[in-house]
């Protein structure tokens, strides 16, 4: 058997290599930095992210397949890489003072985040189920560790273990799914699967149906859609808040990236089947997420359920299965990271060592003690609730448009009614901040300059995408080539 070495197109994976190098550099530098100076590691990470961002920028344009078609650089993956890089940058900025205050400022923290981001980029660019799986595992394993990073705390350990166990199961399902598709089609390449299904009867082959159902379970776990969502609240609550923010942003977007790519590119032949299933999942996810969020008193848990609900909205986009849907999902993910990371940043600002202030009552009267912080939080809450003229509104509008364009009017109606339910719990935070008297003394805020930058980026993103979304929308619409 002749072995051919495929051409080694280093340019296409340059951002991934840069992130890997950045991670390793941080890990090595960690050895030489004193504990008090570990802040500086954040600089190194940010420099890596910026370089990766610049390189990614040069990749905008043509679609390039490399490594025997197992990896692809197209506008779709580039768009996602931007989402990952921006969200990672914001998370690192909001982590610096937080991990110091929690006493977990070790160098591995940044390294793991960078590696996780690298995994996400691999997922977004994977055009072979194996590549995708590889990326998913690199990301997940880093995240399992990060979730348990407050290792002397029980709830953090619980979060980590729960995430790991359930995640491992989900991975198992995913792998089974991949194996079955391989068994049925003889390939793991996304394009080739599509070609095979186009020429052979797909709907009658139980192995293909089974395989794609298992894929839905595997991806459904990662995006936390109902009924695969049970890990989310516990993990979100137990993980360090900055990591909770991270979990809700990048990894979720990455899971959506592969979800869309696999289902829209390789399994369009099965659309009648999966669109029905996903229709139900979207409705369940939105409704359960929103309704259960109402009952939460802990803000991290509330945001966890809200993130479940938002995954439901994004599922609408995949059900719509048109180019508008993909573009709307891209836009929505970007809008979502700004507003959601911003909300978590405010939660971190309000927390203190040993006194985290995670209950919604802890926000009582914040509006008069720290007006600027309260306005910031209100903007994020209103944006998450989908009130114009903020990013969340434009995102939702875009997604519902996609659904209506494909004729899923009922789904859109359920979606908008859900956003009314959601208004209730987002408003509760503003009610606490502005309409309740303060029940306690607020300590002076300890805003590090890093945190201020993180907040400014989030606010800017939330408002800018709400009022002047035109350019991003234009880019998003150019990034849907895969369908």
């Amino acid at each position, binding site marked *: 058997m002749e072995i051919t070495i495929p051409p080694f197109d280093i340019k296409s994976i340059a951002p991934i290599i840069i992130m890997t190098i950045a991670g390793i550099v941080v890990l090595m530098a960690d050895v030489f930095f004193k504990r008090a100076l570990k802040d500086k590691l954040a600089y190194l990470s940010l420099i890596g992210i910026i370089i990766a961002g610049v390189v990614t920028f040069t990749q905008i344009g043509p679609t390039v397949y490399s490594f025997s078609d197992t990896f692809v650089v197209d506008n779709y993956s580039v768009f996602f890489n931007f989402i990952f890089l921006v969200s990672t940058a914001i998370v690192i900025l909001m982590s610096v003072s937080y991990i110091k205050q929690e006493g977990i400022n070790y160098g591995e923290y940044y390294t793991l985040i960078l590696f996780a981001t690298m995994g996400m980029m691999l997922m977004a660019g994977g055009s072979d189920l194996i590549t995708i799986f590889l990326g998913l595992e690199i990301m997940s394993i880093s995240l399992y560790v990060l979730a348990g990073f407050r290792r002397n705390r029980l709830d953090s350990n619980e979060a980590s273990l729960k995430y790991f166990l359930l995640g491992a199961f989900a991975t198992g399902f995913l792998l089974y799914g991949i194996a079955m598709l391989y068994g049925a089609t003889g390939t793991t390449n996304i394009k080739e699967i599509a070609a095979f299904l186009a020429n052979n009867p797909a709907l009658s082959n139980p192995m293909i149906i089974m395989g794609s159902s298992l894929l839905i379970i595997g991806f459904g776990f990662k995006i936390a859609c109902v009924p695969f969502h049970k890990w989310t609240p516990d993990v979100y609550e137990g993980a360090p808040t900055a990591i909770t923010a991270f979990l809700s942003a990048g990894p979720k977007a990455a899971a959506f990236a592969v979800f869309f790519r696999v289902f829209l590119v390789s399994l369009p032949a099965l659309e009648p089947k999966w669109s029905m299933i996903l229709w139900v999942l979207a409705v369940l996810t939105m409704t359960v997420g929103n309704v259960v969020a109402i009952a939460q008193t802990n803000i991290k848990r509330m945001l966890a359920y809200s993130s479940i609900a938002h995954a439901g909205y994004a599922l609408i986009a995949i059900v719509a299965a048109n180019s508008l849907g993909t573009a709307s999902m891209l836009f929505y993910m970007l809008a979502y990271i700004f507003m959601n990371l911003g909300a978590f940043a405010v939660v971190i600002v309000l927390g203190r060592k040993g006194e985290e202030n995670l209950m919604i009552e802890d926000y009582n009267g914040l509006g008069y003690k720290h007006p600027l912080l309260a306005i910031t939080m209100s903007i994020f809450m209103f944006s998450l609730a989908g009130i114009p003229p903020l990013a969340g509104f434009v995102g939702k509008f875009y997604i519902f448009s996609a659904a209506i364009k494909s004729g899923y009017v009922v789904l859109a109606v359920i979606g*908008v009614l859900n956003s009314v339910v959601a208004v209730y719990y987002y408003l509760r935070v503003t009610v606490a901040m502005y309409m309740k008297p303060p029940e306690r003394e607020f300590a002076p805020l300890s805003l590090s300059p890093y945190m201020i930058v993180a907040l400014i980026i989030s606010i800017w993103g939330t408002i800018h995408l709400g009022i002047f979304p035109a350019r991003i929308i234009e880019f998003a619409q150019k990034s849907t080539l895969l369908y």
Partner: protein
Amino acid sequence: MNFPILTIATFLPLMGAIWLLFINKGKEEKIRRIALVTAIGSFIISLPLFFNFNLNTHEFQFVEKVPWIKEFGISYYVGIDGISLFLFLLTSFLTLISILASWTIKDRIKEYMISMLVLETGMLGVFISLDLFLFFVFWEVMLIPMYLLIGVWGGPRRVYAAIKFFIYTMAGSVLMLVAIISLYFMNYKATGEYTFDLVKIYELDIPMGAQFWLFLAFFFAFAIKVPMFPFHTWLPDAHVEAPTAASVILAGVLLKMGTYGFVRFSLPLFPYASHQFVPIIAWLAIVGIIYGALVAMVQEDLKKLVAYSSVSHLGFVMLGIFVFNIQGMEGGILMMVNHGLSTGALFLLVGMLYERRHTRMIADFGGLTKVMPIFAVFFMIITLSSVGLPGMNGFVGEFLVLVGTFKSNILYATLATTGVILAVCYMLWMFKRVMFNKLTNPENQKLKDLNKREWAILLPIAILVFWIGIYPKPLISRMDASVNHLLTQVDEKYKLTLNRLEKDKIKYAMKDELPELAQYQED
């Protein structure tokens, strides 16, 4: 017109709000002045709209159009016609008055004034938007400041009232969003152009089935806002808890957004469905008129009484709009303005009493004419204007609505007229209990009469009350062209649909009886 009057008048308050953000909290006097100056500025800038208004055209005037989100065909497209002109002016006028009436607010004055000004921008934007997306944005934006005004500066049950207000309104409007998006794609299918431009979408010929659903979606949004019976339950709660100025704005402007929505969107977009819905809407309006009046009669709280009287008055407006003739429509629009002035003024008067006595219970008052004669005069004027005494503004609107209704359906008109009688009962009875009778309560004996600021608030309203009552021609003449055009537009489209329906019927009938002939005709 090169000078962007509408944009400046609309966004000036927002600029003022941003300015206020940077003012130190302690400088209360300065904060009030800035807010007032911005509101006055916005009002003065919008005055040329009235004087330079072209009477002879139905087309939108003072139009500005700039692309906003090109990919979706969304533009910043604003303009006014004879229908929105007065609502626009009313809004900037009432906000100005409300800010003046809020002079006594001590608590968190900075946040209060910011909310007030942002609210003004939102409301003005609603009345000038000619792009469906833009309209929706303004429509929702204005919820937040109102929610804060009720929730932060309101009475004891303010949080409940504020959330109820927000969720009710939002629930109605999200369905409208779905309808707007559907219209957008329908328009694309028909014309091949992606646009939210209202004027272009007016041309769209919507199939009957779709009209029904779309009308319904818009109906919920607007009917909750109006509020029509049985969607009115948020209103008394919101009014009772809201601070005076917020009540004025709520009654004076926010409710009009609902009725305005019907005129601007529902009728011209869905003429067939509008005609089909007439019986339901008319009956709901009549129930609202009578129910609102009866419930108002038994209220012990002055604010609640005025709130329920709004339900009754808005029923007239709805009736006027849905009789599809010029008198009804013009009466309806005029009544929106009148209601804004007189009910707004009533809330102001109640607020003045509340500031002095910290109660709004009718039973706590009595005989106030003796201690507050000037107040009594203004109260009388406004009360009579509200019940529609000839010579005052209320009469003109109500009369036109009733004339219009008589022309189309005598039963509706007869029932609605009872509302006028009931209005006289509850208003005058209330007036008697508060102002006449014996002055028994010792706490009422030291009440002070109006101060200069309160004069400044009430006098302009009283002048407008008489002006519109005695010489409404400048208003009506500005409406004529637009209302006429609207009615013919609705009528033509309605007839078109009817004709098609008739043709279809004939075709189907022929298919049954004379298949060959039907085939022949189709060929």
